[in-house]
């Protein structure tokens, strides 16, 4: 009888609480993603201004790639330490692939500005999606 009562109570609690399939909002990650987006935006503004100049050579931009990839890795490690963050991890991994591909293209050299515009637009879409997920997590937290 007692077991039956406990079972009934736990079923009742489950129906009230709902099963959370995704992580809680993490303000540290959100801030870091915003900072990454800002740095990326600055990179493309500079790239447009310095296109064809020695300042925009791959060798002169290695620090940007090192910093961005380090930051994404830091975010990934943080994310792995938090429960139910598989989706965020997948998004960050996708972003990392994008930056690594951008770096490879930069190493080979850009012949036209159009190449950069194409990449910028894809990265902006990715950041929009990542920030959108963060916002929906934040909104759910405040509701």
């Amino acid at each position, binding site marked *: 009888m007692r077991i039956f009562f406990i079972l009934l109570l736990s079923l009742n609690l489950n129906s009230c609480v709902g099963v959370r399939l995704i992580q809680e909002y993490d303000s540290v990650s959100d801030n870091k993603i915003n900072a990454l987006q800002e740095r990326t935006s600055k990179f493309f503004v500079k790239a447009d201004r310095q296109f064809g100049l020695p300042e925009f050579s791959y060798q002169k931009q290695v620090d940007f790639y090192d910093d961005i990839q380090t930051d994404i890795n830091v975010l990934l490690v943080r994310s792995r330490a938090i429960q139910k963050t598989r989706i965020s991890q997948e998004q960050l991994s996708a972003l990392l692939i994008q930056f690594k591909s951008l770096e490879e293209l930069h190493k080979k050299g850009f012949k036209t500005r159009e190449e950069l515009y194409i990449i910028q637009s894809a990265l902006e879409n*990715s950041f929009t999606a990542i920030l959108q997920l963060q916002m929906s997590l934040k909104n759910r937290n405040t509701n």
Partner: protein
Amino acid sequence: MGKSTMVIEDLLKQMLEAAKTVLKTQWKLVKPMAELQLRSTLINLELIAELKLKGKISKEQAALHIEIQKQSIRTTLLSFEGIGIVAAEKTLNAALGAARTVVNKGLGWKII
């Protein structure tokens, strides 16, 4: 409306249809953002094909560009809570599959 715009609109329809088949009930929620994302990807793919035609990029460079575009669609699909990783992957493959023949033909390389 130019010829390339018509091709993009036609491809977009096919990609959206393919994505809808996978996402079923969640489609209504995803459609507006997916449409924006896929349209932007198709415009970029067309620009990549143009760069190839002008001899500005190699096959390897085109593959790197396409990888960047692909990951962008992935992050967009993953931003919808409740879709999940497996469905996002299936949707990505279905959408790209719908455009594969035309895009590869346009590029002149089997990259997608």
